[in-house]
């Protein structure tokens, strides 16, 4: 069970309160109609899927119902930090008060 820190509620809560929402930082293209099939397919379907550190979105579905960013290791599942949706995640090791 992951213990995830919601930056809006400012608390650690159990994973079951949250819904995973995939890779963070994917920007919807401004004019989809002008994109090539390749660029549109890349936007829709292709993800980094790294083995290691991953910046991802979580939704606090049973809490404040807001999206936020989490930096998580996809091998150890350790969580290295979380931040609000419009903030930048700090590099690993520079976040204090966050349990991993």
């Amino acid at each position, binding site marked *: *069970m*992951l213990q995830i820190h919601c930056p809006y509620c400012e608390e650690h809560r159990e*994973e*079951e309160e949250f*819904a*995973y929402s*995939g890779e963070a930082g994917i920007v919807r293209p401004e004019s989809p109609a002008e994109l090539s*099939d*390749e660029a*549109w*397919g*890349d936007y*829709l*379907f*292709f*993800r980094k*899927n790294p*083995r290691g550190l*991953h910046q*991802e979105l979580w939704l606090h579905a049973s809490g404040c119902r807001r999206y936020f960013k989490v930096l*998580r290791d*996809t*091998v*150890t*599942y350790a969580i290295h930090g979380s931040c609000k949706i419009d903030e930048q995640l700090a590099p690993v090791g520079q976040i204090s008060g966050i349990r991993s």
Partner: protein
Amino acid sequence: MKERYSIFSLASHARSYHENWQRVWRSPELKPAYDVIIVGGGGHGLATAYYLAKVHGLRNIAVIEKGYLGGGNTARNTTIVRSNYLWDESAQLYEFSLKLWEGLSQELNFNTMFSQRGVLNLGHSLQDMRDIERRVNANRLNGIDSEVLTTREVKSIVPVINDSPNIRYPILGASWQPRAGTARHDAVAWGYARAADRLGVDLIQQTEVTGLRVANGQITGVDTSRGPVAAKKVACVAAGNSGVVAAMAGLRLPIESHPLQALVSEPIKPVLDCVVMSNAVHAYVSQSDKGDLVIGAGIDGYTGYGQRGSFSVVEHCLSAIVEMFPAFSRVRMNRSWGGNVDICPDACPIIGTTPVKGLYFNCGWGTGGFKATPGSGYVFADTVAHDRPHPLAAPFSIQRFYTGALIDEHGAAGVAH
């Protein structure tokens, strides 16, 4: 002299207390060059090697495996084999595979313990039943044995099931595929490994591929933890780690790796002689020949390579199992484990060529690759040998994520796998 397994070989070895069986395959040294290198020694990779050697006459083949043969998802699944998929493309691929399963033990001279005990896919709502009727009709048009059953018919096949209408997810009926069933997962890997080894394929274990060598858009070999190896063709069948291997050649895949969990109970007396699956509550169960209940859960929502998932997923699955089978409520669970599955956006595999000449990928089987092992190996071997997709594999090209011709099997196939 290569030993053939039979009742006579068993009897003659009994006289020497089974102490003189030959090793099942060689442990060859890595050669400096091969015609084809297969990355990944699971069921699909070993099947690919076998059919490349058997059907296409290639002999200079290596299967390179970072751990041991069949130690990944091949040994972590719940061994269900069926072909009742909704869409023509997938139904034909899985049915082709099911037909290979039916003759596999004889072909490989290895008992894969393939047992056509039938698979039930339960429906718990009117919409489930409409989807089941549609899928069964589609199956029949594709020549697949498939029937719609009522609650009473389900109860007659599985007397231990809870058919009360007053439970949270009452059983309103099911689809039934009598030719579907289970197989011994290790035996499939070992059978293909032994048969491929006899045809001269080098099975290289404990060797990790660390890089792909590409020059002028053409594959030239791989880097391994035991040094570089040249190859004319490289075929990657690395399941949950496919994205990692693809990145070595600068390619991206539309795949996300998720943990998928399963568990087995202590052995109990025979109680369940078919496979029961429920997509709506995401639980499935069968009973192995040893007597353990083999139970599969859903994937974890998050991505992961850790070969383990969260307990909440197991708990959710078991609550559904206990509602369907109240008699199992006090059965103790022996072991649970996880594997990394490569999930495609449309829950269908990617089989085919890549922009790099001589590099091929077979991945994205997600939660349901085991049943496809023979068919996947067969069509992928054909794809690699002829440098073009096998007709059954052609719809599963990676190009479908650009053209939009997806084969949407999410939910549609009664998929819990």
